């Protein structure tokens, strides 16, 4: 089977499976993982690099501050698929776009009532610029980027003709600004280890909900990821990453909302396999290590994801 046919087959499989899987989001942790799941790829001139990711997020922990409580009322999960496309405009400038499809499931344990919402989620468009290329003499790479989260997702889903809360909608309804930066360091020829750190800041905008009197703003979000990657065998690599995420409280009409916002630290191991020169796949997980949540909130107990990447050109810078 040709590589392009393989991608087709896997994509088709994902799309067929998705509608039948229970998909969802919570107060501060439930959207499509637009920020935390951004691939770190930057393409060289004329190169096209495509990634397709499926992520499952189980949201059944309950926290107040850093104290975990027994959760016997509501369970939720969010399933997202993300199509990410990176194109190298020049050797230093890359344009990156992400589209999402989101499904959210909410189960009331007491009466076994289940609500599932699904739809196209918000998208992201980013421009990434390489400030410093990795060379043998100066073995580090530095890039910055900026862009916007675009409100492609629907925010008006209803149940029994009553509008659902924003955290059960596929989209947020707001334009957000995004700033991104990336640094990596290699140690050749002594080692094949690659150290990296990248961070993303999302300055959120407001969305009108029910009328002009209701302007809802999700909290600003800051995500820092740092870790190492290295080869285990010839085509198999590992990634060991630590992630810090912080969100401020959501606001309605400028007033901070209780039980939103917090801080999370999680461990994210991943394995990546290079099938061919252009085709690779990655499987990863996310395990919470510490969280401090404002008020009382449900939060993620674990996340798993699987990605396939295809590089249509010769080279990916990083």
């Amino acid at each position, binding site marked *: 089977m040709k590589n*392009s046919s393989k*991608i*087709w087959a896997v*994509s*088709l499989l994902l*799309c067929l499976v*998705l*509608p039948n899987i229970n998909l969802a989001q919570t*107060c501060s942790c439930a959207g499509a993982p637009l920020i935390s799941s951004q691939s770190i790829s930057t393409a060289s001139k*004329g190169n096209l690099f*495509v990634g*397709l990711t499926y992520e499952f997020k189980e949201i059944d922990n309950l926290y*107040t*501050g850093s104290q975990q*409580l*027994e959760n*016997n*009322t*509501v369970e939720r999960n969010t399933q997202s*698929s993300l*199509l990410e496309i990176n194109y190298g405009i020049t050797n230093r400038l890359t344009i990156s776009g992400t*589209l999402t*499809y989101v499904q959210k499931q*909410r189960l*009331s344990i*007491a*009466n076994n*009532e289940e*609500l*599932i*919402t*699904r*739809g*196209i989620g918000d998208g992201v468009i980013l421009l990434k610029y390489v400030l410093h290329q990795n060379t043998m003499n100066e073995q580090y790479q530095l890039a910055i980027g900026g862009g916007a989260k675009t409100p492609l997702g*629907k925010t008006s*889903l*209803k*149940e*029994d*003709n*009553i*509008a*659902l*809360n924003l*955290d059960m909608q*596929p989209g947020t309804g707001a334009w957000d600004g995004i700033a991104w930066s990336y640094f990596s360091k290699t140690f050749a020829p002594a080692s094949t280890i690659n150290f990296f750190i990248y961070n993303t800041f999302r300055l959120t905008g407001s969305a009108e909900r*029910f*009328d002009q*009197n*209701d302007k809802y703003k999700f909290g600003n979000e800051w995500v820092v990821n740092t870790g190492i990657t290295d080869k285990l065998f010839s085509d198999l690599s590992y990634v060991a990453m630590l992630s810090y995420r912080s969100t401020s409280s959501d606001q*309605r*009409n400028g*007033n*901070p*909302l*209780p*039980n939103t916002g917090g801080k999370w630290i999680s461990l994210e191991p991943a394995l990546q396999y290079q099938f061919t020169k252009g085709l690779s796949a990655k499987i990863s997980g996310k395990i919470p290590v510490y969280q401090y949540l404002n*008020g*009382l909130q449900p939060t993620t107990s674990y996340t798993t994801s699987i990605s396939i990447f295809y590089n*249509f050109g010769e080279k990916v810078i990083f």
Partner: protein
Amino acid sequence: MKKSNALLLSSLFLLFTACSGVTSNSGNDDSSNNSNWLIPNEQVINGGVPKDGIPSIDDPKFKPTHEIEYVNNERLITGVRHGDIIKGYPHQVMDHHEITNDQFGNLPVCFTYCPLTGTGIAFERLIDGEPVEFGVSGLLFRNNLIPYDRKTGTNYSQMQMRGVNGPRKGEQLKTLQVFQTKWSTWKQLFPDAQVLTTETGYNRDYSIFLYGENYLEEDTPPLFPLTVDDKIVQTYKKREYIVIEKDIDIDLASTIIYTLQDFDSGISLKRGEIGDTEYIVAGSSDLDFVIGFEKQLPDGTTLNFEPVQNSLPVILKDQEGNRWNAMGRAVEGPRQGEQLTPTRSYYGYEFAFGEFFVWN
């Protein structure tokens, strides 16, 4: 880019978007039109949790006031009276549960508390003579709790005290007398009353302010927008007490609203008339309570009340020499043991009474 690659990319995009769609699946989807509400259904919103996502307390445990240690002196408690039985429900527990399905002797009672509107109201929980449990529907009407009953599925407006959607739409709930104050005053008024404990069956931190301490401040707006332009609102959270005309449909009933701060620091009285009923309202801004009673007793006698200072649990005396406690029970005098008739009343935030009884 090669032609085949461009074709592949286009196909990927089409495939991705073709998989997209919008459906809702929780018994009903967004094409259903369950708009058969007694209240403006466009003002009914989903509060963010599913039905029973806020768990009611269905097996409440109580201890006498003097054995309760978890309540802070300045935090509020609502008491409910039926006959001689008085029970207290601290708001710091009710913030997490909103409904307690309880029993007052042989009478099944449901105490409901909406943290957003600050309204605590107790209902008899009987349908066709049978006990029924109430739960939190997850819906709100003008920021106010919509309880539902687990037998018929009827949704009720807490502040309107009636069914508003479902089989029992339009049916009025029978209420019990409520009394709200701060814990330090409660301890002086009802040292032996039964108070809800934190043994609720749920693992929660009952010491926190679930909606943030600043939610209780007067100038903090409610969680969800008002139905009127909030430029007309100076303050939102002044605590108030409403007297509602009895035996009249809530849409037609006259109402008179009292603000806690309008009372002296000591106990003072206000006299009023609603419909054909004369009543008095006793209150103290320092002790943090307001309570209303009809002036006329069931035997036809009309009493003239005076406030009593520094003698808790007694707050009133009359021309016959009776002394009355805060629930309207004669504790001394010729009528000792008799009960005053309470007004049809409950407590709430200023904006909530505005939304339900003044602005709309």
